[in-house]
């Protein structure tokens, strides 16, 4: 056990910390896409190597060598300072790594630089009304007609589709092949004729999701990533990454710190909530769980550094444990506020911009999205514990 990062990394940590302190006034206070302050901040972070760190310069990244510890330190410091660490979203988290690994040179040059800069916004067209947990049964079809694919079908849960410039999409191109082998990973412009986007308001009452309908959408033949029919493999290259970004223990720790502040300022009959044993006990339960996740994360980090394989199970449980913990942290904050915890929208008694109620619901969405907790448990029991799959029902 050696938890020292060593002088080189401690210097780097100090550097990151200094940067955040001296530049935090420039950090955008809006999440708005394409907002100038957001794009400027992203540019600055890439220049410093704090965002798009390992992506080559010719594709608009910082072009620095892979260094798991430095990336880890950046994540830790930005979360601790509660300053936004650059732009997220499915384009940057999912499409860019996919293109880097499996895209053609032309695709990389065309799509990665504007995506990293925050100028090209993507949405992800995976789920369909009939293909949720069983994603590979998706039915949106693409049929080759001359030099173009003709796409027909429907996607659902499509975040930011109403704001996106482009979509990366799973479509069935080989209807005769077994279900996992007939899918292709396709990219196309959301302005193409035949696309209709309808809002799907979620329980937070925000328009995070959409339904997207395709009617004879014509897509140039070359706009496929990887080989035709291998889209399932292409998508799975990065699905695992998505799961883990949903459950960052640094964010949970930052949120727990905010919860402590809330418990210090909220009072019931003049007594601070933090001084009430029943609330303290709940807080301590959550702190215990957060510590477990945090040290598990350090173990996973160390396994990645050492290329060790003994931590497969420790990695598999991250999404399940992390999203459930966040939901419970947000839920305690609402109980801490009692009746004021119900405040939402324009209510003048709103605390912390209503983030507790919002995140409480949002994290329920994340428990379901990106592979539900039940699907996570299937993965843990089958791949982690070696238990057999549920047998398929016999055809009637």
């Amino acid at each position, binding site marked *: *056990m*050696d*938890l*020292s*990062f*060593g002088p080189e*990394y401690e210097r780097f940590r100090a550097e990151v910390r200094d940067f955040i302190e001296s530049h935090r006034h420039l950090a955008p206070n809006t999440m708005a896409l394409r907002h100038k302050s957001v794009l400027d901040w992203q540019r600055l972070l890439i220049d410093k190597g704090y965002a798009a760190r390992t992506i080559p310069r010719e594709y608009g990244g910082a072009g620095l060598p892979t260094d798991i*510890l430095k990336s880890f330190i950046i994540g830790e410091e930005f979360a601790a300072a509660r300053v936004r660490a650059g732009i997220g979203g499915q384009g940057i988290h999912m499409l860019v790594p996919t293109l880097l690994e499996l895209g053609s040179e032309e695709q990389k040059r065309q799509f990665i630089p504007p995506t990293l800069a925050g100028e090209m916004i993507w949405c992800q067209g995976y789920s369909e009304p009939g293909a949720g947990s069983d994603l590979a049964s998706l039915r949106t079809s693409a049929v080759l007609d001359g030099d173009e694919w003709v796409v027909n079908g429907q996607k659902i849960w499509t975040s930011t589709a109403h704001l996106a410039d482009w979509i990366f999409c799973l479509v069935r191109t080989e209807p005769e092949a077994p279900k996992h082998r007939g899918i292709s990973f396709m990219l196309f412009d959301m302005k193409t004729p035949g696309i209709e986007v309808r809002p799907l308001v979620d329980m937070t009452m925000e328009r995070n999701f959409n339904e997207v309908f395709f009617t004879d959408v014509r897509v140039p033949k070359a706009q496929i990533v990887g080989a035709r029919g291998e889209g399932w493999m292409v998508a799975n290259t990065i699905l695992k990454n998505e799961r883990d970004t949903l459950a960052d223990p640094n964010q949970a720790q930052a949120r727990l710190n905010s919860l*402590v502040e809330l418990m*210090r300022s909220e009072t019931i009959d003049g007594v601070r909530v*933090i001084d009430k*044993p029943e609330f*303290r*006990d709940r*807080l*301590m*339960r959550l*702190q*215990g*769980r957060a*510590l*477990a*996740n945090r*040290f*598990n994360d*350090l*173990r996973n*980090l*160390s*396994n990645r*550094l*050492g290329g*060790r394989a003994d931590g497969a*199970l*420790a990695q598999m*449980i991250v999404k*399940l*444990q992390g999203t459930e913990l966040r939901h419970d942290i947000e839920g305690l904050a609402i109980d801490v506020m009692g009746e004021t915890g119900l405040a939402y929208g324009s209510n003048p008694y709103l605390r912390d911009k209503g983030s507790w109620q919002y995140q409480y619901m949002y994290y329920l969405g994340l428990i379901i999205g990106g592979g539900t907790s*039940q699907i*996570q*448990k*299937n993965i*843990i*029991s*089958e791949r*982690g*514990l*070696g*238990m*057999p*799959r*549920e*047998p398929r029902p016999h055809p009637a």
Partner: protein
Amino acid sequence: MEFGLSEEQRLLQASLSGYLNEHASLDRVRRFADNTTDKANKTEARARDIEQGLAELGVPALMIDEAHGGVGLGTLDACVVAEALGYSVTPAPFVANAVIAPLALRLAGSEAQRREWLPKLASGELVIGAALAESAGARVGAGVTASRGKLTGKSLFVLDFEADVYLVGDVAGGLTLVSKDASGLTRRRLETVDRTRPIGELVFDKTNAEPLPGASRTIVRTLLDHGRVMLAADTLGAAQAMLDKAVAYAKEREQFGRAIASFQAVKHMCAEMAAQLEPTRAFAWYAAHALDETSQDAHLTACHLKAHVSEVGGFVAKTATEVHGGMGFTDLLGLHYWFKRIGFNRQMLGSPERLREEAARQFQ
């Protein structure tokens, strides 16, 4: 940066597990357990064969420095051992004898005391029990006062009770050593649900005791924290064993024409156990490491670890028993030895509520 066990620690774990698999089987544990409850028979509740085997592997010498006949390893190494002992519900002294007592002598003993006691502890020639339950919270009016080298009062739930000497914590934060044969000392074994670990009470009536000159409340707290991390690691091992047994049983047991391990209801019970249990491993490593390094957060982490692992352990104990169906409830299968060991660890040296209360003092 290396967050995990070293090669040496993995080897220690493997050799210990290998030994325990062979020599501390469930049959052996049963024979031990039956002995401890035989009230008519005054046989001592010690598995001398296992104690000797562990001594040969260097377990009681682990935390004693080489100058005093020990191996000179640390709390993280002891944590690895505790996990293995819990996995096999090993009926042998450890928490008091191999961790708390050597540490007390190191931190609070005189050099003469270290020279006298540590080599005997290291060789396994001598067992020291720990009467510290009252230092973590007195029950039923127990408590020991020290006056002019003599102890009066009573200490309950003494860890590693079948000992030659006891380390006793008094109400003023002092620590003393008392021989089992000291005049004015009455010992009584107390039956508990966990028959793998003998527990008892000590009643002192102006009993001669040898003070450790450097004792303080801070040192007593450090001893308790070490005990807590060891008990937590023991629970981690015992819970891992229960999960492993549940998965193995589910793969074997058939109902409705297929292994019950293929039913999602059963798979999800096992997945939930694994999801809660696996992160406690890294947590335990860190808590032990923090004690080794005397980090500022060592006390907080020890309290949190034991509270959290006790909750997870309780969940695993219940759920793994359920996966075994009716068989899980029987003595025949013996799963209850693990269930009860986890229950024992939960209450000793601070229950979860008590430890979370202590952890919450960070906000004062």
